[in-house]
């Protein structure tokens, strides 16, 4: 459940979850697999890097039952992500989309703040 005091806006949504920005607490909320988790900006980017670094090919090739899933426990969150291969792919899609929107927002903000003479 997203904090009721949060002033949040949806950044990106897929069939498997969503990412919101809370401009009051300067953090991102990740809604995934039936739960929500708040991340500070730096932690969110680190979490994305961690998910991107998961070697899905190795998980597929490895016949061991323990290789079917991976556990990610991001620092400064109470959450423990137990991710099967399809969860990793779904989470990646969500985080990639959210990151794109975060960067797009930066570009839009930069354009809006430019003085007219700098656009010439």
């Amino acid at each position, binding site marked *: 459940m997203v904090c009721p005091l949060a002033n949040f*806006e949806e950044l990106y949504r897929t069939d498997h979850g969503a990412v919101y*920005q809370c*401009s009051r607490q*300067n*953090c*991102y909320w990740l809604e995934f697999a039936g739960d929500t988790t708040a991340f500070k*900006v*730096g932690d969110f*980017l*680190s979490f994305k890097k961690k998910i991107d670094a998961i070697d899905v090919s190795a998980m597929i090739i490895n016949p061991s039952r323990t290789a079917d899933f991976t556990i990610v426990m991001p620092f400064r969150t109470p959450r423990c992500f137990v991710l099967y291969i399809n969860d990793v792919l779904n989470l990646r899609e969500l985080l990639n989309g959210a990151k794109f929107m*975060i*960067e797009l*927002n*930066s570009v839009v*903000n*930069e354009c809006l703040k430019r003085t007219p003479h700098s656009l010439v």
Partner: protein
Amino acid sequence: MKDLLRLKTSLNEEIENILNAQIKVEAHSSSIYLAMSSWCDDQGYDFSAGFFAKQSEEERKHMMKLFNYVNDRGGKAISPEIVNIPADFESFRSVFEQMLEQEMYVTQQFNHIAEKCIKLKDFVTFQFIQWFLEEQIEEEYVARRILEMFDVIGEEGIGRWEIDKHIPKVSYEG
């Protein structure tokens, strides 16, 4: 919508990654020069051992300059893992050849960073790395001058002893 990303960092992700890669290159240089210093000491080239120890310290200072810049701009500097540092070298001359190759590689990397800064319009970082680009003129000059001493003095007889003695005197006047 509030721009949380820019509130956190002024560095573009690509620039942050490339600077972190350069931190690793500088740390690697520092470790290689320390290994060279140890080898020179072991082989009886006292002045060269001192020269490389000083070079190693300088490279670490360069690393820290980059490290602090990344953090000061809101990025996340990564303390690098350094592996594969050789403990043995083929000859006295080859140590300096390797030093020149290393310095040329570092220059190439900084040129690549400058190119990336221009492409991404990060003129603050572009300005910051000017110091490193200027520093590379000296680093390459010194390594090349020392290598030339091997030809000028020659390695026969007391040649290597003579070269070793002259190494601390090689400097770049600019």
